[in-house]
């Protein structure tokens, strides 16, 4: 199937998700969610805990089945996109494999896709450059700090240059300064590769800084409450101190407050 620029990267249509449907422990996590993400766009999902933002991400990744509704990734079903490895994933825990050296961790998805050895090592060196860890390929994960491990996890998720990156609070466990560094680097990398990103976070400033659009979800069952546009252009460390950034953060904060009181 050919892909023109009007085919959305992700199209979520009327999606609901109920866990343990039909039993007494049935929980409706998401109800009637619609969301379209354009190619190259950076979209954050934010909301109080229990709003189903991680569930929505896993539905897009086809790690969970939807209860009703449909999800398309680059015009295909989510299941097909998973099999075609159209997306990369990163989690709050770096999830590196202890027994593999850093370079081998980055090369794992490439091994599964039958890249040749030469291609794999070329790609892992390239990715290590990209996340600014060029000399660490031969180290084991435990020899790296938490922030460095997370950078390796991002390098791994990008190693096969997927068009879409799905991230579940990837910087949640990092300290504030490392987190801001990583945000800058993520934006630089995804801009360079033209990657579409769907990013789950519970940090207001993080969502305002990173995103083109911020989707605010309301809880139980999760629904799209509002979408905040953040048309700030290219971001830098100075962006964090600009009035426009504070205005957007305030707008997101107010939407979240409205969600909390059930408006």
């Amino acid at each position, binding site marked *: 199937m050919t892909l023109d620029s009007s085919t959305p990267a992700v199209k979520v249509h009327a999606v609901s998700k109920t866990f343990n449907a039909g039993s007494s422990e049935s929980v409706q996590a998401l109800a009637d969610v619609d969301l379209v993400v354009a190619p190259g766009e950076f979209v954050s999902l934010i909301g109080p805990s229990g709003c189903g933002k991680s569930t929505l991400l*896993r539905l897009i*990744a086809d*790690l969970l089945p939807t209860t009703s509704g449909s999800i398309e990734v680059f015009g295909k079903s989510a299941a097909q996109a998973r099999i075609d490895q159209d997306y*990369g994933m990163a989690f709050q825990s770096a999830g590196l*494999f202890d027994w593999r050296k850093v370079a081998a961790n980055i090369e794992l*998805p490439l091994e599964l896709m039958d890249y040749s050895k030469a291609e794999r090592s070329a790609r892992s060196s390239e990715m290590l450059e990209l996340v600014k860890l060029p000399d660490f390929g031969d180290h084991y994960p435990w*020899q790296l700090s938490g922030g460095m491990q997370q950078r390796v996890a991002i390098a791994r998720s990008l190693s096969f240059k997927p068009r879409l990156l799905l991230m579940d609070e990837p910087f949640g466990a990092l300290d504030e300064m490392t987190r801001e560094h990583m945000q800058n680097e993520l934006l630089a990398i995804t801009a360079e590769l033209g990657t579409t990103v769907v990013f789950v976070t519970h940090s207001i400033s993080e969502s305002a800084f990173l995103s083109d659009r911020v989707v605010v979800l309301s809880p139980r069952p999760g629904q799209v409450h509002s979408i905040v546009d953040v048309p700030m252009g290219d971001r830098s460390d100075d962006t964090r101190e600009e009035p426009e950034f504070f205005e957007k953060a305030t707008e997101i904060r107010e939407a979240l407050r409205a969600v909390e009181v059930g408006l």
Partner: protein
Amino acid sequence: MNSMSSLLRKIPPGAVVGVVFFGAWEAIMRIRDSTEFLLPRPSSIAREVIRQWSGNDGTLSTAPLKTAGWNTGYVAVTGLVLGLLVGVLLALVVTRFRRIGGSLTPFAVAINATPIIALAPIFNNWFGITGNLSNQAIVMVVVFFPVFINTAKGLTEVHPDQLELMRSYGASDFTILRRVRIPNATPFFLTSLRLAAPLCVIAAIVAEYFGGPQDRLGPVITQNASFTRYASAWAAIVVASGIGLGLFGLALLTERFAMPWKRPAQMQ
């Protein structure tokens, strides 16, 4: 002066403890009990180990220590290998088929709760007392349980993010087993090996107390003890603990060799 103290610092603390322990033992026995009736001196035990090692002078009523140690070691090691195989295979089955696993695990726990050694007379009837089989079976049953429990834990307790990651790559169950579960279980398996290595010698000797061929460490110990030849009994015990230590050392070496990724502080 400085070179003297740096030389002293190079002596491992374990060696110091050992020298003090055996020195004190030797000294106390020399002062208190010249007959060495119940507890012989270390020097007498060492003399017996050397005298009875090959047993060429024809004065021994029991098997030479070299022969007995070799035979007991053979039963212990073959039983260990069998126990490792059965434990790992069962762990793989339990991981692959969770439903079978659910019914298998309580069964394995029940086996473990049984004092295995109580089965020795029955195993002797089943497998006969003229060969190794009965004693090997005891060792196998003793060893298999810690291996099974630990390995199964390592195969199943994989971080959920790592499983989701593998599924996001479209990896099959077999690929996940090979690339994630088995490497994840390696440290768990090696920990159980460290437990099982000395355990197999204990199991072999206790099984030998209950019957089987006589040219083994177990019978050598019981026969010498019943004729109050305590130094000879102790000599056999020394050989047994030597085998146990050797196997434990091998387990540690395997660990170092099989897990190059382990941080040094985690090594023992």
